[in-house]
């Protein structure tokens, strides 16, 4: 969309980078605020015209458009009018998934991380299987929170490689509600991933199960903690984290089982600190 001369003039009111390439000189807050408010009044057409000005890094000068779009995201959050914020977020989200360069879409996803809400989780969820966009999409989803678990859970069966790792880890971040965990492939898929051939996947899955606080995962995680090196350290952490979450949920029996196992198996001097941590927690949990 070709920008109107009025929009071009408003965008040009954004500051020019100074001699060091920074926004440190002649930064006029009032001028910026007024220009952004006027651009916002122009609605959807203005937002899309600004998005049209964005280019991938190194492919042209979009410094002012880049800053303008971010200022608009801040502006709609500042208005404390959720309709205005939603309208802005939907417009930005409508530009995802098409022919725009991936680097530009990545920036749009980051804008949604600032100002998006439940209304854009579907659009973000579709990007979870895109190798280039899954990471920022997952980050925006977990930042938004509301509705993120369902998107991540749905993407898990189709996610491959880097996307799979991202989805598994972020399932642990959002700690999906019980009804989603019980669906076929939910927690079971994570348990299976604890024995994946990729070490990053194994560690992420163990941590996700621990963070979710799944009581049926104790044995899986304790077995994982028999590994060596970094994986042993991380799986042991997952065991301790799971036990803490189980205790917080009143599931003392399962927690005591984990602590007892760690107390009895961490017998080398180099792992004394784990044994001590388990012993301390056992005492607090009322175990022997």
């Amino acid at each position, binding site marked *: 969309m070709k920008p109107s001369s009025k929009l071009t003039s408003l965008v040009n009111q954004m500051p020019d980078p100074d001699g060091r390439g920074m926004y440190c000189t002649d930064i006029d807050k009032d001028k910026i605020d007024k220009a952004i408010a006027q651009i916002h009044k122009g609605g959807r057409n203005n937002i899309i015209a600004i998005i049209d000005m964005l280019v991938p890094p190194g492919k042209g000068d979009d410094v002012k458009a880049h800053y303008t779009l971010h200022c608009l995201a801040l502006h709609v*959050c500042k208005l404390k009018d959720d309709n205005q914020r939603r309208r802005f977020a939907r417009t930005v989200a409508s530009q995802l998934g098409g022919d725009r360069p991936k680097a530009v879409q990545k920036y749009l996803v980051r804008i949604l991380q600032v100002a998006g809400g439940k209304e854009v989780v579907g659009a973000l969820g579709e990007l979870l299987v895109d190798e280039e966009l899954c990471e920022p999409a997952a980050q925006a989803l977990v*930042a938004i929170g509301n509705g993120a678990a369902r998107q991540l859970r749905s993407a898990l069966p189709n996610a491959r490689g880097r996307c799979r790792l991202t989805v598994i880890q972020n399932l642990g971040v959002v700690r999906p509600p019980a009804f989603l965990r019980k669906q076929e492939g939910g927690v079971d898929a994570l348990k299976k991933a604890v024995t994946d051939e990729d070490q990053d996947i194994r560690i992420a899955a163990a941590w996700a199960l621990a963070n979710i606080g799944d009581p049926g995962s104790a044995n899986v995680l304790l077995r994982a903690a028999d590994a060596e090196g970094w994986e042993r*350290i991380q799986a042991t952490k997952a065991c301790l984290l799971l036990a803490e979450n189980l205790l917080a949920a009143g599931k003392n029996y399962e927690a005591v089982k984990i602590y007892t196992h760690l107390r009895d198996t961490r017998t080398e001097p180099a792992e004394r600190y*784990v044994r001590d941590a388990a012993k301390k927690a056992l005492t607090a949990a009322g175990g022997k």
Partner: protein
Amino acid sequence: MQKNKRVTRRQFLKGSIGAVAAFTIVPRHVLGGPGHMPPSETFGGALIGCGGRGNGTFNGLGPNVEKRAICDVKFVGKTDNKMVYTDFRRVMERKDIDVVAIATPPHWHALISIAAMEAGKDILCEKPMTRFIAEGRAVAEAEKRYNRIFQVGTYGRFSANRERRKIMTSGLLKECKAVYIKHGGFKVREWSGMVNVKPQPIPRSLDWDMYCGPSPLRFYHPHRTGGTHRGYWDYEGGGMTDMGQHFFDRFQYEYAKDDTSPVEIEAYAPPAHPEACGMWGWVELKYADGLTLVFDSEEWGERYNRKEDRSVSISDLNEQSQRKLREMPDPEPLVGFPEAIRTRKQASGHAAVSHRCVTLMHLANIAIRTGRKIHYDPVKEQIIGDEEANRLVNQPMRAPWHL
């Protein structure tokens, strides 16, 4: 006891010397203590992040630490996985490393600190302790879970006004009307980021993916590394976080705010850039008890003029309270890192208090970045009534990195 036999810290803790420490017939110079370091007590040390602050931070570990590993993402092609590493996880696997000095850019501070504690090591971490608030809570939880020693590499509280600390912790001051204004020194302009960077080829010696770590994988530009990384939200938070922990560790200790945070934060600044840290004028942070803290950059816009400096002193107490104060014990002596790892006493700049200190700067930056007055719940450590601002309290990490 063989005088020159090398005893590792773990052997020490296991009881070979620790057990006899209970008997007073053992001379003090053998047991250690302030100014008495037994020559046999050698700790295995590692330095992670070998840039500008690397050696200085490592030296802060104390005199009896032997450097056994160095690790930096810029060592690609130079590693031997015995002394020189690019991946800190390999260092964590080593059982002969007891203490770790962390001098990486701040976006790695929390994760490496936590990993070190999970591996049973003690940590001296360069300031600022973290990149966002939730990281600090996670470090403090790991410190507690694994009972490790952690100290942040700034020592403001060690030169604090102890009388003020005593007044503030005494409970004798009924109302705190103090206003603490820090004028200038934040290096706002110096540690700003570039808004017009263009992609550059990644140097062969640099593992750029590992450098970015938990932060978004951006294109490479040298300004994002080597000290000037401070100017980017991805890695630090400008001069605010870089200098703030120096300034306010002392404030936090003197005013007894180690267990809490401000409840209302307001900033005067132009709209922030999404990636590059930039200019701000001042930030006002109010505590629930009435104490006001102000950061006045003196580098942009109008100067702060809402309130005037007013400190707490003995004259704020009536005569009866002053008498009571004199009868109270003085604040506990502070414990430095070398003493802490030797005695297993908690270091005075431990994770929980250092987290509260760096939270000040994170809250200020959130107010700057959102352009909104924010309200903070210091118990839940959440921003109240502003879902979008709250997203900056706990920022997502790039897999496989997580807290």
